[in-house]
């Protein structure tokens, strides 16, 4: 089922310090983190963002720290997905692990502005800009990453494996 959402556009190298400043890392409560999401790049963002919105950004989104609080804050703020030209690797992993869709679609990013509406089909790797009507290809995930997404995040995937192993041991 494709998702649709209103776009907030950001530039290149959006780092984890501006996504969720370290001064707020004294909690792991998603709602508390969400109140400060993107605060150091746009102090008004947490007040403006609405459930279902989409963040669109340039190269190397999420560079910097390994703090999983960053994708957690974005997701808890109601952001449906992040579309970027490229992602920093730890952020990408973290987002997949916690079930925040991250879509690499450089051409779509370049022709999308704040306020546009995007339609994203993660299954087939297609991004459509509803203002311009143009359609773009997104980078396809590996089978392994798709498996984590289908399981609903890394934890579920690992839990399934642990339970399967326990069941196998019990059956012997």
């Amino acid at each position, binding site marked *: 089922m494709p998702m649709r959402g209103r776009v907030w556009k950001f530039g290149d190298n959006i780092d984890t*310090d501006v996504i969720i400043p*370290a001064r707020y890392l004294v909690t792991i409560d998603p709602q508390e983190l969400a109140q400060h999401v993107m605060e150091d790049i746009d102090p008004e963002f947490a007040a403006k963002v609405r459930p279902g919105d989409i963040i669109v950004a340039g190269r190397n989104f999420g560079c910097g720290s390994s*703090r*999983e609080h960053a994708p957690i804050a974005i997701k808890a703020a109601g952001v449906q997905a992040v579309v970027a030209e*490229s992602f920093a690797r730890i952020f990408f992993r973290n987002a997949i*692990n*916690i079930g925040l869709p991250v879509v690499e679609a450089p051409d779509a990013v370049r022709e999308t502005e704040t306020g546009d509406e995007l339609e994203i089909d993660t299954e087939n790797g297609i991004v459509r800009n509803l203002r311009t009507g143009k359609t773009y290809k997104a980078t396809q995930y590996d089978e392994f990453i798709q498996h984590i997404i289908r399981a609903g*995040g890394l934890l579920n995937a*690992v839990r399934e494996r*642990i339970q399967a192993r326990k069941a196998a041991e019990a059956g012997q």
Partner: protein
Amino acid sequence: MGMTMAEKILARAAGRSRVEPGEIVEVAVDLVMTNDITAPLSIAEFKKLGVERVFDPKKVVFVPDHFVPAKDIKAAEQSKIMREFALEQNAIYFEIGRAGIEHVVLPEHGLTRPGMVIIGADSHTCTYGAFNAFATGMGSTDIAAAMATGTTWMRVPPTIKFVYTGTLPPFVTGKDLILYTIGQIGVDGALYACMEFTGPVIDELPMDDRITMANMAIEAGAKTGIFACDDKTREWLAKVTTEPYEPVDSDPDARYAQVIEFDVSNLRPLVALPHLPSNVQPADEVRDLPIDQVVIGSCTNGRLSDLRIAAEILKGRQVHPRVRCIVIPGSQEVAKQAAKEGLVDIFLEAGAVFSVSTCGPCLGGYMGVLAKGERCVSTTNRNFRGRMGHRESEVILASPAVAAASAVLGRVASPFELN
């Protein structure tokens, strides 16, 4: 076709004869680490997995270092969650007063050795590549899964080989080499890749400087940075561990995504101006940029040799009246040795403060947070907007030599500008 050292470590950890860049492999991990910021989330996730114990308590490490000694009640609660879990699991735990910053402490205890796969819920885990390990940062959920299973998944990175030739000029350190490299390739110049640091300059480079370089591989987007194991590595390890280790070296016909050569003979001490580590310039070309604060320390430059360079410059001089200079030893060991060698006296006489070992100000945590409009020269690793405090403050990255010279002159300065 040969393999790079990174590929060899991953192949071994995957139980395979070889691996190819781009493929995803499951590897056994030799060490899993978290800190007071990332551990509480890892522990919460771990508890959802339905396992009671970590896979091997001797391979799971907890280090309180970011907001300790606790900066406020919330930080204290986070540390407490980690401390209780670590003790309950009988895992390796480094308490303050006997430890310090994770990436300084683990090598001091011989926990980071050649050939290992090390993962940590801290992006600067790549530091341990200085010891010929495959080390990389991950998030809390990945670490939770690894704590439970002793394995993780990795995409085998392509390796970019960096060859440093020429002769290193005075006051040009590992920090300058890595800043120069990031300045050349950009903050995503090694995205997803392994940076292999080689060449005659690297062969001569002390371990502390190699550690600084590996530490900042992440600032070029890299998955890790790695060095060969040589006499300098073995000398370090001989002092701190009796555990065996199996070094790896790249084959002569190993495949590299890119080979980049730098002649460093004409390098000058560098700085990275706000707000990216790639915004690099020679320190002596930055004219009349007044500063409010200097921080010397962190996982990047908080080792004994860093404090020695800073002390050499601050000896008999005074910190500029307008500047606050904060010196932070990377660990209790560094602090003890700095006291023994008289470095602490030099800092105190110069009008600097000598702090407890903590990550504190590097990430705007505490012990040196910047106000609106303030500017800091720091030996840390990131100068992103708001990194050390107010979103309208500025961080300029530099080596301890440049930081100390700047502290004296009250502006961004090269050590050569001192009389």
